């Protein structure tokens, strides 16, 4: 897993998010695009890309894109 690719996938999975607008330090839950629909599309992307089906509660425990990346990495 590469953080750079993960960030691109994160950006693509959230409708309305522009490419290059997110870094590994981004507090994603504070993004204006973050809502229940975003949780669904992000969960789906991560499952399709990495075969890891995250629960909403797991995602909400993460603060930054980096911490989300590490969570997925630990479950791959």
């Amino acid at each position: 897993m590469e953080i750079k690719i993960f960030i691109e996938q994160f950006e693509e999975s959230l409708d309305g998010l522009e490419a290059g607008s997110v870094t590994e330090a981004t507090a994603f839950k504070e993004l204006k695009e973050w809502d229940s629909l975003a949780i669904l599309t992000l969960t789906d992307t991560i499952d399709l890309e990495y075969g890891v089906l995250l629960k909403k509660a797991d995602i909400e425990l993460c603060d930054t894109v980096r911490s989300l990346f590490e969570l997925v990495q630990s479950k791959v």
Partner: protein
Amino acid sequence: MDISLSGSVTVVPPKVRSIEEDVDLFGGNIRQIERLKKTLGLNERRIASNELTNLDLCEQAAQVLLEQLNIQSSDLDGIIYVTQTPDHSQPSNAALLHGRLACSTECAALDIGLGCSGFVYALWLAYSIIANGSSQRVLVLAGDTLSRLVHPKDRATASLFGDAGSATMVEKRSEAGASWFRLGTDGRGADSLIVPAGGARLPFSEETAVETSDADGNIRTKENLFMDGSEVFNFSIEVVPREIEALLSDAGASKDAVDYFVLHQANRYMVHNIGKRLRVDLERCPVDSFGAFGNVSSASIPGALAYELADVLSGKCEGKSSHQVVLSGFGVGLSWGTCLLNIPHLGCLEWRAYKA
């Protein structure tokens, strides 16, 4: 097994509500509505008036079906009605419909208390009782009026669910091929899709009518339908593709041999995702009825058949004499049912709006 569907009719309420009318629910955020349309496929849904119950919708569907197939109600020997929004807690909707249609007293009638998986469960039961010789011809009704159970200020459910009733005939047909069923349940997920109050565990009271707001700002009472969308989504993408693969393996059938995968019309995103996970052409996974009716619970599979496949399955537009169709329902329970049916041309497959 020489058993098949012979026809199906879906009846929806005449009242249409569009997602644009929910602008206040989304705090005036037009962009959010556009996102929901684009991602989930939300568009229009059908809403029953206060006087119209699911029994009324299914009764009209049954009358049209009997007339189109030229079958007398006295020729039915089984009525299976899937609903979680019956007219009364007792007697069953099946018994009430039996009375309204003036069926024979030799006809068995029962309700099944299931939601989105229920149509497949009812078909399984209908096929089984015909196969074991108990019945010759079974009328399957399926539907709910969930719009009454959702709180209008709960964004997780209010714009999603619509109302519909369906009637489907199952009977012996010598030209029918083999059929395969797989059913399953995971009651540990019961709390993720539930109406907490109104049953014996928590009867209606002043307390159950109190509105509360959740972490996302959605408002509902314990008398409303609660859905944990994230849990239900995860359950669906985990279970449904696996079940369909297993069903095809049981049947020794390849995905290429299946003409259509008609999945419960939960929303467009869900249907397309299951299709993607199955690696099948999305044109074989109908989903347009969701944008016309909403998620209509156990009526969604017959609704999708009638909305998108009427000409094909009635033999009006291509040469095939029968079609291989996978049906898959999943939802409240949590519960799921998947079947592979060989369907010779249907004598009737249509949908229409209810007429008083």
